């Protein structure tokens, strides 16, 4: 038997989370060290898994399969391919840096890390699972701790409202998708006599076109709610803003990818004909996401809301790339999930650092932070350049193929979508100018300090990844491409 690396990655966080609960609550340093160790361990394993994936061979690797409930065809079945490989790596990165950023949490850190790690297990699980039942199982495990993390440790002003709104939106999405998944299971079982939740089998079930056309919207939108698709994106900026820093990082960086990934994995890959029938209006909706999201971001005065809406805009690009159903678009979307995940984690980390010092996020009240925390603006500018899709950074290699794919579909859509880049540049530059440059307001004089060493480590990690992927795209592009090839085969070799 081969080394069960994916299972270890999936269960390391939750096991650590439960062990942390056994440490006495007042020994906060031990709790943090344990959390950091688990984060580092999961990161190393995901890096290892990522680089030992054999791109030439392609397909699903590191497969593990154990029967769970054979009577219904439910099994614990995980595997890694070119699509979810980068996402596992992303989760490892965000988890590790999230622990670093959360070092300063002083109110019940034990419970905080326990919930955060339960969430991380759910996220890893959704990415690697190949069983439809397991996917829902992990999905709900990933979503629920969010409620507690936001409502207990979040921003006091809106946390109750935002946490409830987020949870209800996401659960409505997931149960609607669940109905679609059960319909697939029953239809495939009745037709073939093989009752199974195994997605590798369901892919070959050969659902009729009318069935696919009927159920695709249920499944796709059920999950795309978590991907922040218009008009169901409303929970996301509120949720981001109310969440504590590490949770915002997780939320925007990883959790929203969960939605987009599941919409791809279950929606597009299991119901390809349905995807073809519905793609045109999904592209229109995501176009609204991209342009409208960027526009709303540019008129916000709250630093965190700007980043929150920028996530809506960028995640729109991901869904849009998937909806083109062509090679370039999907390749770009796959890369954008990783690139945006790291970038937005970086952004939220910076927002958190500024807020911790200034205790306000109103952009007009801030200024001159370059003087007190010199490393932070550098990191933010790198993130900003990624966000604008500047060559040399990961954003370029992700967004450029998406626009190519859109051009291949309908040139005018690519042109309209490209407007978002201009708007993005406007709000990023405005933040850089107003928050980091200019003069430090008097009331902050002597009250704001530089960030801690751990914060710096986190920022350096995140920005390094963005630059490396931008300069050496070959460490990620071939892998995602192999994943896209698999999807394209399901779509009929388009």
């Amino acid at each position, binding site marked *: 038997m081969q080394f069960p690396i994916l299972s270890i990655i999936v269960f390391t966080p939750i096991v650590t989370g439960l062990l942390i609960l056994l440490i006495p609550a007042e020994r906060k340093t031990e709790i943090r060290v344990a959390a950091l160790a688990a984060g580092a361990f999961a990161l190393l394993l995901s890096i290892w898994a990522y680089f030992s994936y054999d791109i030439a061979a392609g397909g699903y690797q590191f497969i593990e399969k154990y*029967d*769970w*409930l*054979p*009577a*219904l065809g*439910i099994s614990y079945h995980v595997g890694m391919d070119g699509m979810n490989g980068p996402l596992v790596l992303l989760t490892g990165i965000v988890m590790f840096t999230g622990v670093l950023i959360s070092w300063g949490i002083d109110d019940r850190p034990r419970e905080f890390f326990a919930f955060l790690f339960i969430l991380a297990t759910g996220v890893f699980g959704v990415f690697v699972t190949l069983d439809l*039942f397991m996917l*829902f*199982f992990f999905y*709900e*495990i990933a979503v*629920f701790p969010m*409620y*507690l993390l936001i*409502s*207990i440790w979040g921003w006091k002003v809106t946390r*109750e409202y935002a946490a*409830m709104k987020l*949870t*209800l939106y996401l*659960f*409505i999405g997931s*149960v*609607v998708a*669940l*109905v679609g998944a*059960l*319909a697939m*299971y*029953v239809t495939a*079982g*009745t037709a073939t006599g093989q*009752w199974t939740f195994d997605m590798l089998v369901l892919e070959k079930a050969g659902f009729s076109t009318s069935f696919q056309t009927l159920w695709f919207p249920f499944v796709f939108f059920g999950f795309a709610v978590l991907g922040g698709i218009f008009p169901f994106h409303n929970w996301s900026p509120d949720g981001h803003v109310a969440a504590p820093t590490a949770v915002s990082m997780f939320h925007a960086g990883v959790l929203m990818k969960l939605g987009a990934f599941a919409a791809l994995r279950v929606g597009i890959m299991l119901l390809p004909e349905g995807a073809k029938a519905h793609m045109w209006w999904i592209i229109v909706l995501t176009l609204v996401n991209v342009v409208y999201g960027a526009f709303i971001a540019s008129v916000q005065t709250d630093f965190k809301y700007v980043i929150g809406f920028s996530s809506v805009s960028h995640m729109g690009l991901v869904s849009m790339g998937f909806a083109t159903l062509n090679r370039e678009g999907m390749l770009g979307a796959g890369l954008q999930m990783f690139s945006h995940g790291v970038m937005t984690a970086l952004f939220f980390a910076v927002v958190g650092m500024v807020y911790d010092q200034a205790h306000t996020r109103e952009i007009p009240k801030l200024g001159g932070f370059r003087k007190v925390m010199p490393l932070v603006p550098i990191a933010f500018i790198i993130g900003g350049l990624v966000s604008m899709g500047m060559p040399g950074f990961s954003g370029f290699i992700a967004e450029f193929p998406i626009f190519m794919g859109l051009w291949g579909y309908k040139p005018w859509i690519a042109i309209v979508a490209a407007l978002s880049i201009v708007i993005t540049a406007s709000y990023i530059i405005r933040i850089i100018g107003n928050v980091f440059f200019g003069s430090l307001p008097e009331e902050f004089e002597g009250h704001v300090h530089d960030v801690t060493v751990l914060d710096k480590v986190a920022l350096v990690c995140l920005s390094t990844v963005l630059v490396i992927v931008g300069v050496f795209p070959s460490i990620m592009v071939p892998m995602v491409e192999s994943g896209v090839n698999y999807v394209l085969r399901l779509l009929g070799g388009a």
Partner: protein
Amino acid sequence: MSLDPTIFLPVLPEIMLLLLGLVVLVLDLVLPKEQRRNLGWVTAVGMGLVILFSWPARPVNGSTLVWGGMISHDWLSYTLTLLVIFGAGITALFAMDYEELGGRGEFYLLMIASTIGMAFMASAADLVMLYLAIESVSIPLYILAGFFVRDVKSTESGFKYLLFGALTSAVMLYGFSLLYGFSGTTAIISTSRAPGLGPTILNSIQNDQLTPIVLIGSLLLVLVGFGFKISAVPFHFWAPDVYEGAPTPVAGFLSTASKAAGFIVLIRFLIFVFPIGVTQWPVILSALAVATMTLGNLIALTQRNIKRLLAYSSIAHAGYMLIGVAALVVLPTIQEDAHAMWGITSVVYYLIAYLVTNLAAFGVVAAYGRVVGSDDVTAYYGMSRRAPGLALIMMVSFLSLAGMPPLAGFFGKFLVFLAAINAKLIGLAVIGVLNSIIGLYYYLTILKYVYLYRSEDEDKSIPLSRAYKLGLALLVVGIILIGTLISPWYNWASTAAGAMF
């Protein structure tokens, strides 16, 4: 004529329960007043032993009819018998430290009597037996609900339960008499299992080719009685008032064991008495399910008393289980395969999960309310700081009620919806999943009070007796095991369901 001792085997659990009742009765006489709370230990341990020694009574030979066709000895009745005995044992643990309840022997005796009735209810194979069983469940429960004679609310609760119960029971009896009148027999279960016995109601109905309207009429009358037992809308009005007034452990017992027994009777009746294929069946049951879960959930949203909230939530859960029942009546008409019994399997699995989960919820409310002296939701503000362990158990049980993995409720709901979709009741499944979101909202609201809100009493800790600790620990382990190791539980539920085919 010699008596074959093996004929006692099918009723072994009931016999042991009777002996346990006698032991409690005698001990109640000899024990001094201050030691009588230990009767709770006697009952709980006794129930545990009954479960253990019931093993020889399992239906190894498949389903059989015994005692002259009065009792059906099959996996469904065996499963439910163990389930209600478990529920009663846990209730005894929760009750023993409850003031004015745990120190009185008659409480335990009444509960045991009611449990015997439930066991017979699950296995009744004849109208007369069924009616006797239902009454022997109900009458002790009327007394238990009104156990606190000095408390106006408790008295009201007992009296209300009695009035509603007597009325619906009379209507149901009228339905029974109609059925008897039409068919000339009281046998419910088909004769192929026990040759030599007379024809069943179903045989006679089919032979005489009665018009559907007559069948539907008597069906509706019978359904009134069952609807009352499982607190389905529109026969649910008693539940909130009775739960609110009754001693909390009794309310927990009412909402779990009594409801479980009602569901098993409903399933048995649907399969054996009313011929599958009456076209109105799925419509009636779907309407019942939709009304029950939607009304239960919507009214639960506005409740400010935790016991009333749990009452409406338990009404909503009856609605989810009715989805499985509706799937059960559709299926055999549209397909003939092993998956046709998913309807029953899902209900049985849901019952197991629900019984364990809801008992835990009521256990927390009993343990907390006993000290705090209030069941108002405001009393739960800041509970996580007063009693962190209790708050954690409350979170586990409420999340399980909401259907969150990896807890028991998730797979229960999953199976029910699967059964519905398999039966092509897609609209019903969609309404069901949307209802579960409403449920999530009010469960989360309570958890918000528990974890987020502050109160002035945060420094006053909540003492937990050993009985509560043991009972709650058992239930929490159960909730997690049923939610993660689903295979053995599913196979058990599936075996029980197979007994019906």
